[in-house]
């Protein structure tokens, strides 16, 4: 067999393996339901990976407990909490008052709002770019391809080069939802593998602009972002923590006050330093650190992400 056929063959096998792996995992989740009364968690797709990681460590630490994590979106999770099919809802937005009332009625107790992490997105430009701030509308126009030149937003006369993430990325989803109003990105957006790659690209491209978790900002500069009718705010641990930075949000767990102990124990555990370290490793802001100090994410986090991203893409080849 020739080289080409062989590499293609390897690729197809890899895809098949990935497909089988996925199926197996789903099967396991289904079967484990019977043995132990499981803690069912449902909600935000953004939080699935984070909660899954939390659940894995929690289950390791507490033998015999089963935590089942499902996505579906914040709304789905909240609906499941209301109608009783989930013990705990994950939401990347606060619950509405009407939803809280419904839940209180059906579950017989007030709903507890339990923030577990912070999520913030920065807009990056090259260090030599004179632009210091952009409104959210400007950022949207830039990524829609309507604004094509830096001079239109107070920069030099140079074309804007766009960098973004693949559609499979949660960062992509968040940016699309909160900045792009669920609209499409310009086709000219170059999609790179991971936030670290975007920072690297923007860091070496003086006309570049990209977005990603603020923890990665090393080689590129994060812009101040201005929401409508507000002052421009630069992202920092502080502005993210107090909610003034417009592209930050809290990630919540919701559960009824009268929830079983297995629910409350898991929620409490999610705020332990051990769990909050996981929060950082997944790429969000731990609540504790933000409140405590200005300790920025270290270089190692970024390098690790590059390594995992590359490893993940290698399997696909």
């Amino acid at each position, binding site marked *: 067999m020739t080289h080409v056929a062989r590499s293609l063959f390897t690729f197809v096998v890899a895809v098949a393996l990935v497909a089988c792996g996925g199926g197996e995992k789903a099967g396991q989740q289904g079967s484990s339901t019977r043995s132990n009364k499981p803690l069912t968690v449902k909600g935000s797709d953004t939080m699935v990976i984070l909660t899954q990681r939390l659940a894995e460590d929690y289950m390791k630490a507490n033998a015999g407990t089963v935590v089942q994590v499902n996505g579906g979106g914040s709304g789905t999770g909240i609906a499941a909490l209301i109608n009783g099919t989930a013990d705990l809802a994950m939401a990347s937005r606060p619950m509405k008052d009407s939803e809280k009332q419904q839940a209180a009625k059906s579950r017989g107790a007030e709903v507890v709002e339990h923030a577990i992490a912070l999520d913030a997105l920065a807009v990056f430009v090259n260090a030599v770019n004179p632009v210091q701030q952009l409104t959210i509308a400007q950022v949207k126009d830039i990524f829609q391809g309507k604004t094509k030149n830096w001079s239109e937003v107070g920069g030099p006369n140079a074309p804007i080069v766009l960098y973004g993430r693949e559609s*499979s990325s949660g960062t992509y989803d968040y940016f699309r939802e909160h900045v792009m109003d669920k609209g499409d990105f310009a086709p000219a957006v170059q*999609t790179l593998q991971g936030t670290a790659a975007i920072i690297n690209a923007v860091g070496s491209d003086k006309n570049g602009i990209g977005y990603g978790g603020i923890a990665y900002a090393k080689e590129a500069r994060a812009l101040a972002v201005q929401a409508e009718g507000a002052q421009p705010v630069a992202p920092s641990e502080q502005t993210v923590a107090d909610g003034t930075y417009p592209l930050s949000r809290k990630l919540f767990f919701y559960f009824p006050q009268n929830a079983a102990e297995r629910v409350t124990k898991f929620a409490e555990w999610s705020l332990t330093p051990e769990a909050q370290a996981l929060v950082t490793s997944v790429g969000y802001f731990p609540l504790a650190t933000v409140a405590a100090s200005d300790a920025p994410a270290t270089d190692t986090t970024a390098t690790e992400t590059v390594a995992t991203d590359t490893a993940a893409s290698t399997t696909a080849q």
Partner: protein
Amino acid sequence: MTTRSLGTTGRRERRRLFQNALMTGAFSVAGWVAIVFIFLIFLFTFKETLPIFSDPHVREEASLSKFFVEKQPGETLTEQYVWQPTSEKPKVSLWPIILGTLKATFVGMLFACPVGVAAALFSSEFAPRRLREVIKPAIELLAGIPSVVMGFFALIVLATWLQNAFGFTYRLNAINAGLALGFALVPIVYTISEDGLSAVPKAYREASYALGATKFQTAWTVVLPAAAPAVFASFVLAFGRAIGETMILLMAGGNAALTTFSLFDPLRTLSATIAAEMGEVVVGSAHYSALFFMGTLLFVITFVSNTLGQWIIAQMQRRMQGAKA
């Protein structure tokens, strides 16, 4: 006595025949397993593509006409032919991606074919034997560099060099990705071309020298044409590799699905799209089927170019044997 010896021979003969049947069977099974495996993979890929033709639900978002014909309103080609499968209104034109694949392949081949053939000519015709013994394994070693390393090099180093040297607007573009791809193609072109050039009978060269031709004239007008089928076969195989190469282009190509013919724009290839999007796609969705359609497309292209390559090698061998006789 005679009957008895005849009996032994018969038994021995029978055992021999049984052994023969057993071994032939074992080897046939092994061979067939490989063939069946390839066939099953193709079947699987094609099965997942099938909804594009049969499932009305999938066809609402992805069908042959949506892949190749449908046009979005807009002035530029990039606005008209769009690959945005996860949009609120999915757009699945394959043109930007096919074009990206072809652009990268074009640049890669443009670099690798002359360089590979020149290197092959040098090592088979001009280089002293001792140097040749170093060059050949060294270039073949190049084939062993993992494409992820090549892609990383192109992403971090090559892109910056090229941008500084030529002032490209986009760091990651078809030139950058194509060059990196070219590095991976050189060993393929070199190895097969070199084998072909070395296989040219010595008598050809001697006849050429006898007529007063220089070394270069001999290499260029006698040896190279005589090995043309091998050289062409190497191009075909390199083409197949270029079309299917994933990692280098995923990393160094910029992955923007632009419908342009400019080599200075970022590009997105078929294989890179599959690699990047397969991870998160909903199984059974239109997007999923579309990705498998791309896979089938790649499969068909590589299969055809490979078969062609094999056929040309066979032709070449027949010609060489004919020349000897």
